């Protein structure tokens, strides 16, 4: 699991790559928290288009970052979830807790 990040003004975008399971989430969560602490963005976007696998540990990672963002006053969105991610996000009702942004797929 690795990630890239990009800052545009007040918006921090992190794109995750690979398989988002417990093994991948463990090191990622503290790295993302450190990044959020350091950048103090107004908006935090987690792009999940390149995540090929996601289980409930991935849901935990998203929920944990949602709390982290709330604690530093940032608002968080999920961007472009892949098919694998979307299915589990919807099953868990995460779309009611966090905004999911998608560009129209043609």
């Amino acid at each position, binding site marked *: 699991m690795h990630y890239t990040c990009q800052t545009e003004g007040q918006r921090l975008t992190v794109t995750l790559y690979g398989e988002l399971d*417990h093994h991948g989430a463990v090191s990622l969560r503290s790295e993302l928290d450190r990044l959020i602490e350091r950048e103090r963005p107004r908006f935090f976007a987690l792009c999940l288009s390149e995540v090929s696998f996601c*289980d409930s540990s991935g849901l935990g990672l998203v929920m944990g970052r949602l709390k982290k963002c709330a604690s530093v006053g940032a608002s968080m969105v999920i961007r472009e979830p892949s098919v694998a991610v979307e*299915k589990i996000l919807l099953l868990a009702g995460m779309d009611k807790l966090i905004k999911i942004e998608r560009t129209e797929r043609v």
Partner: protein
Amino acid sequence: MSSAVIEKKQKRKTDRELNSFKAVFPSRSANEGFARMLTASFVSQLDPTVSELADIKTAVSEAVTNCIVHAYPDSVGEITLSGKYYGDGQVVITVKDKGKGIENVKEAMQPLYTTDSGGERSGMGFTVMGAFCDRLRVSSRLGAGTSVTLTKKLSRGE
């Protein structure tokens, strides 16, 4: 001993067993991906759809992760993953540990139920397993271990 079943379809009389595997590995998180790959290549012999394969991989990942996180929280223990499939396209995967066990399985299987206090678990593992398979059976004994059986009937089985 505590056990519970979530069942979507009535269990069918199973057909002839066509193939099986069994793997034993330590409860290290790197083995979550290993368990998924192993199960996926076994199930691939049945020519599953992309979404069936994804569902089975997710359910197995949930069960194996639970062994690593909950069954053996402060140690490395043994996980046994086994699978079988039948002539009618039914796949049965079992994940077993000899860890701390679950006192009340029914309660543990409720959506959002978690004993984790770190705030990084959603308590959705069993719900995901139940939703992505046709049948989920969990039985456990405190101090002795837990066994999770996932059953899914593939559409291409005749």
